[in-house]
């Protein structure tokens, strides 16, 4: 299903919208050099996360999936399998799962958790929490599907 159009605020409509990485890149990956650069970061991050073999959910939120011309960075939340052991991977992967180091290395704001951490009912309920904006409204987020 195609990603919906932006609303009057330049956001996706509230809700969790599914798309493949290719669909995300087609929709959000151009328009400015900054956008193209952030898109390359997203592709790199997604490639590393998938390569772990332990990725369950990959959700993009924040300004990258809005009408903003030059998003500063990419904001990602990941759910990893319960047996994911981040220290057992190579340096590049370990950097991704350390928030401060991933900001410096990948230009991304990365959050992650495992299913056992979820406290708001289901994983879907927890993921829905990433829609909330500071003005107390909600904006759509995108889950990258295989």
């Amino acid at each position, binding site marked *: 299903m195609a990603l919906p159009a932006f609303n009057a605020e330049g956001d996706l409509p509230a809700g969790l919208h599914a798309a493949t990485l290719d669909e995300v890149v087609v929709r959000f990956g151009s328009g400015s050099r900054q956008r193209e650069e952030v898109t390359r970061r997203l592709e790199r991050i997604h490639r590393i996360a998938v390569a772990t073999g332990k990725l369950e959910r990959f959700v993009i939120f924040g300004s990258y999936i809005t009408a903003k011309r030059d998003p500063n960075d990419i904001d990602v939340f990941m759910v990893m399998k319960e047996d994911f*052991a*981040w*220290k057992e991977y190579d340096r590049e992967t370990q950097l991704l*799962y*350390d*928030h*401060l180091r991933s900001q410096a290395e990948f230009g991304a*704001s*990365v*959050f*992650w*958790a*495992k299913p*056992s*951490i*979820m*406290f708001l009912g289901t994983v879907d309920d927890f993921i829905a*929490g990433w829609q*909330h*904006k*500071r*003005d*107390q409204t909600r904006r759509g987020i995108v889950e990258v599907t295989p």
Partner: protein
Amino acid sequence: MIQNDVELNGTLERIAWFQQILMQIRAKATPEDFDAMSSGYRCELKKMQDEVLEYLSRYPDKSSKDESREPNLAGVV
């Protein structure tokens, strides 16, 4: 930067949510995961708390005060 009391309340709600996440990570994460998994939430929590303090340190513009948008102090830590 927080611009008004609506955004203040929204940020306070986000702070409470991130605090709950950290509490859950403290309770459920393995020792090996704890630092890395909690780092993002700790970083974001600090940023929001700093934004709240910065906003509360500014004298408010009372020329267009909306009584219905008073800060919600419930649960403020």
